[in-house]
């Protein structure tokens, strides 16, 4: 690598990190609410922080909290989280050609794929800026792990986040991600979302907690199978 491209790469890491700073602020707030929520569910202080370090996935962690908190079992929680993280598979495939090194190195670099960084690093036409994506992930990781630490200790002080309305933070966060999905997903995404909404709402009174989310995901099969008939 010439020194000139080295400098360009360094600038790109920094530009990505800068672009992600406002998002990191939102991430801190969400991480605090995750920490407080986890604390209110009786997870203690260690488990939520470890979870944020090893999983580093807001949507999956909130889904686990939602399922376990509602009395669902580990299996339902794991399935919900895995289904929710399944989007990282196509996202990873999309960035694969722009990552460096052999399969192991690329798999490690792929761990920096998170929704916001991936979206920020997209250069159109399926092209991605590797350095920008990695740069954008760093402040978000610091914010997520640091915010979780703050949240689990605030949990002691505030005595549960429900009084502060923190239990709606994650439905509201998912709503914001959903709106983005619907903006970019076209008619099929809207159809799937509508079907999933009906399946989830109708099933809530009749099945164990956690299962409505899994039933909602069956809307995908209904639409994909029907379309290909």
């Amino acid at each position, binding site marked *: 690598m010439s020194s000139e491209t080295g400098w360009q790469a360094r600038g790109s890491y920094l530009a990505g990190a800068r672009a992600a700073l*406002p998002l990191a602020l939102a991430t801190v707030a969400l991480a605090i609410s995750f920490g407080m929520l986890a604390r209110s569910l009786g997870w203690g202080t260690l488990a939520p922080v470890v*979870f944020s370090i090893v999983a580093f996935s807001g949507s*999956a962690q909130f889904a686990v909290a939602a399922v376990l908190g509602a009395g669902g079992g580990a299996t339902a929680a794991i399935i919900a989280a895995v289904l929710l993280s399944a989007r990282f598979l*196509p996202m990873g495939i999309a960035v694969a050609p722009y990552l460096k090194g052999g399969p192991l190195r690329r798999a490690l670099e792929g761990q920096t794929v998170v929704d916001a960084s991936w979206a920020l690093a997209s250069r159109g036409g399926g092209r991605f800026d590797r350095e920008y994506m990695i740069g954008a992930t760093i402040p978000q990781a610091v914010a997520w792990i640091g915010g979780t630490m703050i949240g689990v200790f605030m949990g002691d002080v505030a005595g549960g986040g429900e009084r502060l309305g923190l239990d709606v933070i994650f*439905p509201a966060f998912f709503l914001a991600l959903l*709106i983005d999905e619907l903006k970019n997903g076209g008619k099929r995404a809207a159809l799937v979302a509508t079907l999933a909404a009906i399946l*989830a709402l109708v099933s809530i009174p009749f099945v164990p907690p956690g299962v409505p989310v899994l*039933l909602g995901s069956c809307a995908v099969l209904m639409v994909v199978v029907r379309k*290909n008939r």
Partner: protein
Amino acid sequence: MTELWVTIIAVAIANSILKGAGPALAGDREFSPRMNAAISLLAPALLVALVLTGTFGEDGALVIDERALGLGSAAIALALGVPLLLAVALAAVVTALARLLV
């Protein structure tokens, strides 16, 4: 507590595999278009289900409470182009106020 740790470890491993598999294996290999379509549609399906169960679900019952007000406020704010952080904060504030007043 064991249930929690099993979940944490399983989710972390699954997450790493899901994030690493594409970069490690992709190159020449591709999923069928049908499989790709299904994967890309998973996010909206799961997100809508999580929004609704998190807002209207309570111990296996369908309820409408202060959370619906908070989420509704966030929905309006997002529709008006308010940034994510503010919209999410608004949902919490509205829900907290509604609980305080009711």
